[in-house]
Structure formats: C-alpha cells, structure tokens
C-alpha cells in the first residue's frame, strides 16, 4: 500500500469511527426501541423509573431538554462513562444489571427518544418571578444555594430542575418530610446528605440540632441552622436522636400559592436545562 492510499484509508477509517460515535445507527427503529425498553428496565429503571419517567434518584428522561445530554452522541457518552460527581454510574458498574454492548446502548437511546414528550417539562410558571421569590419572599435561599448564591443548610438546587420531575419538586416544597429518604440504598453513599434532622446532646449538656452531612455507626457530621459543622463521636454524646421530620418548613398554599410554587419550579427547571 502506497503512503497516499494509506492516508486515504486512514481518513476513511476515522470518518467511519466519527460517524459511528456521532450518530445513532438505530435512530427511530421501532424494533431497536423495543429492545432498548428491555435493556432500560434492567439497567436504568432502578433510578430513572418505569417508562423513563423519573424515579426517586434519577431524572425524568422523557423530558426533551436534558441537563447533561443533547445529542444521541452525548447520551452515548453519558451512559458509557457515567457523570462524575453524580449518582449516574458508568455502564456496567452500578452493581444492578449488567454491562451493555454499544448496540444495546444505542437501543436504549432509541427507546428514550421514543418516550420523549416534546412539550413536557415546560413549567407553566414565570421563571423570573420564581427567581425573585426564591431569593426573596419565599425565603428559599436562606437554606438553598443556586449558582453559588444562597444558604448551605439544605441541598444545592442548581441542578434539581434537571434531575427531578416537576411533580417531585412541587411535592418537596409542599411536603418536605415525605420523601426525605430518597436514595437510601448502597448508591446513597454517593448522596452523603440525607437531610435527616438530628438532635445531639454533648457530654457537657450542649444541645446541637441540625442536619446530617454524613453518619456511620460511630460518628456523625452535622450542620446546624447557623451553618456550623459539628463533628461528633456518638459514644461521647449524652443523647443522639434522629428524626425524619425535615428542618425545612412545610410550604402550605397559604404561605406559597400554587402560582408561586409554579413560578419557583419554572425558575429551577430553567436552571436545570442550562
């Protein structure tokens, strides 16, 4: 083979590889979507829910706008390699289900695309008004951070719009204690913050109330309402009590109207889609 033809061959090969990575070879193939549904149930539904509609831990994938993926190629990379810093594991490493072949990953992407509802996820509220409420009268930012601004006692909500369904966010505002236990599986070790309310009394009688940052059988790491971190050894405490009653106040409609909640959710979803 001459050098020229070798170069031509190489370029053709690279083109083929790039095409393979950029385009879903099974796009819009109903048979692939069906096969993808089986794979999805085994590998993905544990977090993303049946029908890809979102579960306690994973985002609703039927939403057209996704935080981490836009093209099929993005999605392929995310499924293959996971998302660092999140609970999304690399293919074959989640201990549930099995590793997938490239073909199976494309089948899943085809399935997810077939489930997308183009209009879903568009909150009806006004994001600008939601932002005002979040940082103002709603008092959300006293405990929650968004884009680096706000309090520390509650979870950072910058990404919540991209990782939770609209219904789940509304429910968290209206009934903050109801799903406090989200994510408590082995995978929850990737969610050190479970936001259980803790009341500890130290040997010298000092009471500390806050949320758990982390905990094991022997130690607990707590943040109190003043954002002080307390590092405690359980056997040195006079008492240690946990409660699944959230420190977040319950936002009833007389505190935040349905419209106001819609606005806040619209704001959070607008962030999540960035």
């Amino acid at each position, binding site marked *: 083979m001459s050098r020229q033809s070798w170069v031509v061959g190489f370029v053709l090969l690279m083109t083929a590889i790039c095409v393979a990575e950029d385009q879903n070879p099974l796009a819009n193939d109903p048979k692939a979507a069906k096969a993808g549904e089986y794979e999805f149930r085994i590998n993905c539904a*544990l977090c993303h*829910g049946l029908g890809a509609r979102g579960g306690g831990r994973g985002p609703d994938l039927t939403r057209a706008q996704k935080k981490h993926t836009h093209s099929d190629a993005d999605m392929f990379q995310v499924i293959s390699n996971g998302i660092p810093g999140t609970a999304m594991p690399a293919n074959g490493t989640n201990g549930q289900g*099995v590793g997938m072949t490239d073909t199976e990953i494309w089948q899943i992407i085809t399935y997810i695309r077939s489930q997308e509802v183009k209009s879903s996820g568009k909150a009806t509220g006004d994001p600008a008004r939601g932002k005002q409420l979040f940082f103002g009268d709603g008092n959300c930012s006293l405990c929650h951070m968004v884009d680096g601004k706000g309090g520390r006692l509650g979870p950072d909500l910058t990404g919540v719009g991209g990782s939770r369904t609209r219904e789940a966010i509304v429910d968290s505002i209206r009934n903050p204690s*109801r799903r406090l236990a989200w994510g408590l599986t*082995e995978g929850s*070790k990737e969610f050190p913050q479970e936001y259980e309310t803790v009341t500890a009394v130290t040997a010298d009688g000092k009471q500390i109330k806050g949320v758990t940052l982390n905990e094991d*059988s022997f130690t607990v790491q707590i943040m109190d309402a003043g954002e002080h971190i307390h590092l405690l050894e359980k056997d040195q405490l006079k008492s240690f009590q946990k409660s*699944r009653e959230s420190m977040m106040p319950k936002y009833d409609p007389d505190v935040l109207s349905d419209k106001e909640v819609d606005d806040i959710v619209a704001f959070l979803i607008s962030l999540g889609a960035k």
Partner: protein
Amino acid sequence: MTAMTEWNGRHDTKPRSGGRMQPTAQAVGISTQKGQARQGRKKNPVQDPSGAALRSTKIIRAFRPCVLACILLTAAHAQLTSDRLLNSAKEPQNWMTYSGDYSGKRFSALDQINAQNAHSLSAKWVYQTAATGKLETTPLVVDGILYATAQDNRAFALDARSGRPIWIYQRQIPGDIRPCCGRVNRGVAILGDKVFFGTLDAHVIALDAKTGAVRWDVTAADYRTGHSFTVAPLAVKNLIIIGISGGEYGVRGFIDAYDADSGERKWRFYTVPGPGEPGHDSWEGDSWKVGGAPAWNTGTYDPATNQIFWPTGNPAPSNRGEGRVGDNLYSNSLLALNADTGKLNWYFQFTKHDEHDWDATQIPILIDANGKKLIAQADRNGYFYVIDRTTGKLISATAYGKTTWSDSKDTDGRPIANKNAEPTLAGHTVCPGALGTTNFMPPTYDPQSGLFYVTARDQCDIFSTAPQPYEPGHAFYGSAYFPSEEAEPYFGFLKAIDPATGEIKQKFQHTSPTWSGVLSTAGGLVFSGDAEGNFIAFDATSLKPLWHFQMGGAVYAAPMAYAVDGKEYVAIAAGSAIYAFGLP
C-alpha cells in the same frame, strides 16, 4: 452455650508435619474452654510424610492476656495435602479454604485476640490491589503466605506478616466479557503446590503457589454467552470444584470438578436437568436450555458421607415465570453431590419457580447437634432453613427478616409463595426485595456461642415483569425492580440466630445495609464490616461493638483469621485493599 453446640473447645495439639521448604516455626494460639489455660507444648522435630526432616526453631511468644494455649507448630509446609484440608482444625493458624474449613463455619479457633483485648486492635498492614470496583475476596493463608484475588482476574500472594507481595498474576480479559454484577472474584482454592481460581472469561486456572506461573488453564464455557466465574473454588481430595455464574444471561448452570494435577474435567453436574433426566419435566418446553440455576458461591463438604453441598441460583429469566412453568429444578436449591462422581444424592429447593431473583447461593453450614447431622442456610428469600444433611429432609424454616411472599407452609414445613407475590407489569411490593434478606455475604456459625450470625437487611422492592426474548449473551431478566415507595429507609443488621429454634437472639443495626460477611472466633468475638467502611469487632453474645477501624471503603467481602509466628491477625478486604489487624 445452647443445645446446638458441637464443639467443646478441645483440639488435637499434635504438631503438624512439614515439607521441604525452609521451615519457620510457629507458635499458635489454640482455643480452649474459656478460662482454662494450657501449657505450651515443646517442639519436636517431626518427619513429614515424605520423610524429609524438619529443622524447627521454637518460638513461643508470650501471649496477652494468655487465656490460651500455645503449641508449637512446625510450619512452612511445601504441600497443602488434601489430608491437611480434612484436618484443618489441627492447624488453626492457617485458613485453607474459602469458609475456613469444609463445614463452612467461618469460625477461627484462634483466641489470642479476644473480647478482653479487642479494644487494642490496630492495623498491621494494608495491601492496595490497584483494582477498581468492589473486592469480594476472602484471603486464604497457608504457612505464612496469604493468597487472594481482586477485580479483573487478579490473583496474588503476600507475606502474611507484612503484606508485601510475593507474586502478582493478572490474566488479560477479553473486551467483551459480560459479568453481571461487577468484575469480581471471591477467592482461590489451594491444593498441593498450586493455587486455583476461576476467571471472568470462564477459565479455570492453576497457578504455581510459589511463583504465580500458570501451571494449567482450561476453558469451562464460552464467556460470550454470559458464562463467567466469580466463585472461590473448593479443593476436595484431588478435585477442584467450581460453579458457573451467568444466571442473568440464561446460561444452563453447572458445577464442575477438575483434576488438580492435570486440569482434566472429571465430572460436570448440570443444575438444569436435560431431556430424560429426573427433574427435566419441571421446565416448560425448551426453557431448560436457558434455565439459569448458576452455582456462584462456594459449597461445603462432609468427608463422613463424601458429599459436597452446593447451592444454586435463580432460574432465568429471573423475574418472569411465564414460559418456564414448573418448579424449575434445580434452581434455588441446595444440592448434595457425591464428591467423586458429581452424582446427585438429594436436593432441597428453597424457592420454587422463583420470580424474585432469590438465588439460594448462600453458604450452607454443617452443624452437628444432639447427634444429628444438620446443614443450615440463611436463604436470600428471608427464611432460615435447617435440613438433615443425610437425607435432605427439612427440619425447620423460620423467617429471620421482613418477608411478605409466604404465609403458609407445605406438609414438609417449607414456606410456599402467595399467588399475589408474583411480579406484575405495573409492579407491586414484595419483601424481601431483589437483593434478598441476605445475599452472597458468608455467615458464620460459632460453636462456642451456638449461634449462627448472618448479615441481613429489611428491604422491600417493587417487582415488575415484562416479556423479553432470549438472545445469547444478552441480559435476560424479563423484569425490573425498584425500591419500594415507602418513605422510611430500610435497614441492615447483623443477626444472631439460634439454629435450634430459629429465634433471633441478638441483633445489631447498621447505619445502612452492608454486604460484609461475618467471622466468629474462639476469642468470643464476631467480626464484620459495614457500607460506611468500618471493620467492627463485636462481642459474640451481646453484639456490642468492642472496636472499630475506618478503612475508607465499603466492605463487600468476608473476614478471616490466621496466625504467623504465634501472632494472630484478622484480615478483610475493603475498598480496593486488603487489611490485616492484630494486637499491639
């Protein structure tokens, strides 16, 4: 002490023979009845079976607090004979099989580390495997050398005193292997001068115990159809017994026996009977061909009856019974096989026609009590079973965790499933969940306390099922399962069960469920790890933690104990490392 006690704490203290390697002498703590001290024995040079003289040096260390006897063992045997495996109780300094001995008790007769001094335990060494993912290995220790495995077909030998590697072997893995649940391995078997382990691409490999060189390598099955090995093999006589993984891929399960010298396969028992074989009619149509029933956890052995007891896993597809109507023998069963021939003597099926992925691949432990030869298994389906190991007849089945799938028993006393426990398309909640009340993590039976200690969890899942065609090498679940909608978290426990009654005598609640196995020792201790990375020594009676060490990685392995030069160690894998602990 309960009625279920077979061990009075006395041991034959005859020094063991040795081999041709440069000997190092060992003084080893042997358990005695509590509070009774025994004299150290004087060493005598002894002859090994081949007649080679041993040169031994007497090293008797002063043990603290010395509620134990010291005997001198002439050590550094070159050959681990099958006779030594049969008499493993005579050399408690060594941990020579996956569960410590053939009975599967995972009990160490060492008592240098005990309830009085456990608070002063400290880490002696750490070996980083450089593997990624979870470690499920139980190390073996023979004559001062520790042998273990890690992710991605790694096996290695370490100086058990220092953790320094002697050899490291890693087999290159094909890019398209399909292990179901992590690229894990649970350990090696040792016999003669070889170390044996199964690989993720379904090979059985014999390595030279001194160098790690490959002595033989046989292919058991095609990895491309989902076959793999994760189990620690069991050496019995001159055979290496090993069971296949791949229930998630619709393999037809089997248990193999290989000649330790040549690698020649001596027998294979298919856990799914073929046409014309008894039990074949428990499968609908051709479903037996992809019936699963893998054999991915290590069995036990009763030399008196020459029977191997090996548990099997779920039928495939795991969460869909449609298309495989019948009991689906011998899935989710305990098999009693003739060790020489692999012929089935009896079986006991824990979960018939399983649709919840409740592999019965838990360690079956041999217990002798009141003249009865029993076998006990804490099953993934949430019941603790005691079976007559001579006949296979069920003696008792008692729930030891949260179960909702059964509210009645058949005439033999076996729990039978509710109709409404079946998975549905929309899904509904069943307890235990798919991970089971327990799983592969080995339990322990402590003959001193008479209690069976097992890692358990109270978790329920939503089980959903959907049709799925079989494709070779593709995951074959017919299902999905999800955490239940309950707002409350679910918990993990260490539970102590009285095998005589099934009663839970004591329990310790972990912060979250753990995948750690359990070890009991003659020091009145039970050891286990947790998902938060702690290694914990518990008082065997109260299950109160006496000591803990934060290892920095979750535990998916089971602890073991050994001694070198008269010093006892307890070892466990966590994160991607092996840790050894001892007294100061």
